[in-house]
């Protein structure tokens, strides 16, 4: 596995010709988007003033008009940037993933299947589900797959209008765990204890019948960060040995975002709550900007390094058979 500095070198040296070419495209694209928005805005003003009388009678029509405008703006943005995004992913992300670890495959339009998302039992059922940037493969003999996903819930108001709220947006990781287990264990970000203090927080935590019993862990730092539920008090502690708890805390610190984990059916599922799409090219800032490159590289090395970080390659004896 390559380090952050090795990948940074690769980004600025081997990928430089591609980045330069893409940078020209990016500039042209950003201008195109701005121009088309100016035209769209002018058109909207013209149509708006022409239909002034209609709008003054019906406030609903204004709402409809604005919604239509927004839809056109989003559609235009997607249409214009599509080719550029594809070229970025093929020309930059693909070689970067291969360079990070040659046992990995990258597909920009695929994502973790909805069945896997449901199997993790981490989140509620999604009515709208999608994702991209699917990376899969085997690192030191351990199978791993991850991608960006966006799971949404559908709502309908009294008039039957649909709207969507986000259940989860971020990176979703599925990998094998190196110990046998048959129960279910859930490790969630501890929001109750943080916001309500120890006493009320732990009382609130104990009221979560959907997840199974509350499991109090004997590591104060881990308990501050996470809350654990599970169907088996002993097995949950077998999975979460003191060493594993420390490694998960370290992973949480490096990811800089809340993480949720579940251990179900011999698999480990990790959801990193980034709240946005990762590995997307910038349109209004330069691709050569150092902070942007570091964001791609750090996120990638965090994910590819997961197996080593959690020492999942050190399988138990009986798992070899």
């Amino acid at each position, binding site marked *: 596995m390559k380090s952050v500095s090795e990948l940074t070198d690769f980004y600025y040296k081997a990928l430089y010709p591609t980045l330069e070419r893409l940078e020209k495209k990016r500039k042209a694209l950003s201008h195109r988007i701005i121009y088309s928005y100016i035209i769209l805005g002018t058109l909207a003003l013209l149509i708006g003033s022409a239909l002034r009388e209609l709008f003054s009678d019906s406030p609903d029509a204004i709402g409809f008009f604005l919604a239509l405008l927004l839809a056109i703006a989003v559609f235009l943005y997607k249409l214009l940037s599509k080719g550029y995004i594809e070229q970025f992913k093929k020309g930059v992300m693909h070689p970067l993933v291969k360079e990070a670890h040659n046992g990995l495959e990258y597909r920009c339009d695929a994502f973790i299947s909805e069945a896997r998302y449901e199997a993790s039992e981490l989140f509620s059922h999604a009515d709208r589900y999608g994702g991209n940037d699917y990376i899969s493969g085997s690192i030191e003999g351990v199978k791993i797959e991850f991608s960006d996903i966006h799971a949404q819930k559908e709502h309908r108001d009294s008039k039957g209008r649909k709207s969507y709220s986000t259940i989860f947006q971020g990176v979703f990781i599925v990998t094998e765990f190196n110990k046998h287990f048959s129960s279910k264990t859930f490790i969630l970000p501890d929001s109750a204890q943080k916001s309500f203090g120890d006493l009320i927080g732990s009382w609130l935590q104990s009221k979560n019948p959907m997840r199974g019993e509350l499991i109090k862990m*004997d590591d104060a730092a881990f308990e501050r960060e996470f809350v654990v539920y599970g169907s088996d*008090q*002993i097995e*949950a*502690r077998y999975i979460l040995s003191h*060493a594993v708890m*420390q490694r998960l805390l370290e992973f949480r610190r490096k990811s800089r975002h809340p993480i949720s984990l579940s251990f179900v059916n011999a698999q480990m599922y990790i959801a990193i709550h980034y709240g946005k799409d990762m590995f997307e090219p910038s349109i209004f800032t330069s691709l050569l900007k150092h902070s942007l490159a570091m964001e791609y590289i750090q996120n990638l090395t965090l994910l590819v390094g997961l197996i080593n970080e959690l020492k999942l390659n050190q399988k138990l*004896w009986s798992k070899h058979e």
Partner: protein
Amino acid sequence: MSIPLALILIFGIILLLIYNSLVYKKNQVENIFAGVDAVLKKRYDLIPNLVASVSRYMEHEKGLLAEVTHLRAEATKPHISDEHKIALDKQLSSALGSIMVAVEAYPELKANENVIHLQHTLHEVEEQISAARRAYNQAVTDYNNAIEMIPTNMVAKLMNYTRKELFEIPQNERKAPDVKELFH
């Protein structure tokens, strides 16, 4: 409804909740102890095989092997108290640890496949025991807290609940084990 009656009712409900929570905590300790028992039994099952495999080579450790066999026989007797089991487990853990250290001095044993396999299985069981001990200690801590804290302690006294003993967690279990070293 008059105020005194309402107060008595509320008091009754609180008493009932406290009673139930204490019973729950006591049962939780017992349930988890059953789990501890199950993994301890796994280890007892490994001991005869281990002793048989190493006794041919280990001339100087005969006493240690006899002690392990004796402790196992003692621990698998029916109807022994939880406290006694905990005490036996502690002695057995340290005796087994000494055998594992002694194995290092015998190259034939270190290379013996059967012994290697037993060592790994034992290591896995030890990890399970460690998890079971931690689960038990947490349940006992919750139980002990309840019978010592106000107001649950008053009800606990009436129910004749007494403090329970914790498992001692060996210091080396608190450290992250270096699995690589164990397996290679």
